[in-house]
């Protein structure tokens, strides 16, 4: 019993990491139909920024996280304004080709500046080790991951439901044409959403270093996981990404625990099965 709880907890924490990394892509894909395979590259950027400001400038971890968010958001806006916006009308295939090109370039640039070595991020003392509750040991960092992602979810849901920008985003996702007709500046809304989504990827990248490490292939490596979460959850849905990520995290960890022989198959089988039954994902609308 106690190991079951631990497994659920660990899986959930891992899922939450995936959630922070991928929720931005889900929203931008749903909003603008823009297939941004470079999303993981913004996660990588966040990771490198966090590591660099902590090492070179001595930032504490809790300050490095928002820095990573900001850096990824700012860089993504520059990319969006200069390059990506030209592709909104392009075919899906061209979007795929272009953003894969961006991942290639990002990976080469990261190699040039940081080398191929694994980056190390030294956590503050209070985030290390584990705490004992009811006779079970919980990793402190994993508790931290869950807390952060719940905060992110809260802010996102509140922002989408209760703010003016949120209402505009919802309107644009639901029916872009009507939103435009009502005088909404959809492109600007998208720019802001894109920045937020990439910023979250940056935050996710910074959070991921401790769990999965960081090297120039991060952008490729996480692409598959991010796409799985987005497609299973359903485009444009925060709830969908949250549930999808949690499901995949728990499914992956629990599957490996109970059936380690097929551990590596599970995440893919789960995805294929879900998408076959619900091609729009669990919470997708279109």
């Amino acid at each position, binding site marked *: 019993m106690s190991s079951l709880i631990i497994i659920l907890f660990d899986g959930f924490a891992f899922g939450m990491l995936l959630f922070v990394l991928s929720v931005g892509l889900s929203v931008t894909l749903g909003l603008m139909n823009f297939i941004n395979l470079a999303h993981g590259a913004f996660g990588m950027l966040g990771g490198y920024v966090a590591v660099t400001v902590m090492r070179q400038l001595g930032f504490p971890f809790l300050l490095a996280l928002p820095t990573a968010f900001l850096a990824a958001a700012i860089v993504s806006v520059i990319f969006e304004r200069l390059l990506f916006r030209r592709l909104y009308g392009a075919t899906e295939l061209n979007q795929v080709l272009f953003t894969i090109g961006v991942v290639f370039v990002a990976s080469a640039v990261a190699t040039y500046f940081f080398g191929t070595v694994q980056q190390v991020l*030294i956590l503050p003392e209070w985030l290390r080790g584990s705490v004992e509750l009811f006779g079970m040991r919980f990793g402190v960092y994993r508790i931290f991951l869950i807390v952060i992602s719940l905060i992110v979810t809260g802010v996102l849901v509140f922002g989408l439901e209760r703010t003016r920008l949120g209402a505009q985003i919802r309107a644009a996702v639901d029916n872009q044409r009507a939103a435009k007709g009502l005088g909404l500046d959809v492109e600007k809304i998208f720019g802001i959403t894109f920045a937020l989504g990439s910023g979250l990827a940056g935050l996710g990248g910074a959070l991921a270093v401790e769990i999965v*490490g960081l090297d120039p292939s991060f952008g490729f490596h996480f692409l598959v996981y991010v796409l799985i979460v987005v497609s299973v959850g359903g485009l444009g849905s925060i709830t969908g990404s949250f549930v999808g990520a949690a499901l995949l995290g728990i499914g992956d960890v629990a599957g490996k625990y109970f059936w*380690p022989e097929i551990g590596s198959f599970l995440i893919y089988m789960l995805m294929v099965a879900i998408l076959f039954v619900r091609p729009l994902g669990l919470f997708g609308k279109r």
Partner: protein
Amino acid sequence: MLTRRVTLALGVALAMSTSALAQETVKIGVILPYSGPFADAANQLQAGIDLYIAKHGDTVAGKKIELIKKDTGGPNADTAQRAAQELVVRDGADIIAGFALTPEALGAAPVAEEAQKLMVVMNAATSNVTEQSEYIVRTGVTIPQVNYALGKWAFEEGGVKQAYTLVSDYGPGHDAEKSFSAGFTEAGGKMLGSDRTPVANPDFSAFVQRVKDANPEAVYIFVPGGAQPAAIGKALADRGLNPPATKIFAQGELTHPEALESMGENARGIITTFHYTLERDDPLNKEFVDGYTAANNGRQPDLFSIGGYDGMHLIYEALKKTNGDASGDALLEAAKGMSWDSPRGPMSIDPETRDVVQTVYIREVQEVDGKLQNVVIHEIPNVKDPLH
């Protein structure tokens, strides 16, 4: 379609023109995964090669050494084969070297065999690599070599009676699991269980929990280098599976410098087996490490670096012996049975199997001058690959 005779004539003509050019130089083709997920291994290995050339000059036995680098992008046997083919027919390479990964070596082996070129495997650590061609010599390490020895040692000296293994689910991991278990059970130990983790595994918690459920005295780990050592080390510690309560055995990658830094206190007491120890107190090693870190922005050498460095040593010494004759057969004769003092310790090439024979070090993570590092606690000299 050209007939075979024309092909042959053309081939001979081209080969002659390249060999005429090659008189004053010896061309070494280096096949490595310079790009892709294993780029770090290639970089470290290349840095080892470069350091050796920087130290000993680029001329040996009157010949100038020229390197031609070929990228494989990862464990691609077909790309490695094409690279080897091109090195031989287009670039007129005399020696092919490199090979961080086993599939690369397997792909290139038939080319070395057919072209009769010396092939120096500087890392690829699967036991059967040297059996692929008579022209292969290995200067790195084999997985059974270090892990079989560790398995024996764990029972006899480490005081462990039963253990659990947790390895990556791919060739090297299977080899490691097999050879550790063999050494351990032959000495009298008992295996409680074994699990295999997917190669691209982002999260170890499920497997670590399984280990915890089995409650072994010791757990043996094998994961590829890079991010996984630190991740699994931390996952074990989160469950309270760390020394002294539970002993952790592993191959040396688990406690490479970046992983040690990332694991922090959790690494204390981990016992690893390896053929190269960065911190080993030895003048030759100190000179090597100092030269390496100075040339590479403070980055420290690892198993790939030492494999590349000693691989170049073998090539240089063999060329000296043959007076600059770079034909495969001459170099091979010179390489067989060669022995020397490397920064890793004394090593030699077994004349029968053309495989590396070396000292295996059992190390423990201990605190030295306030810093955690690998400390050699036991040495086993002249270890051969047990599977040959």
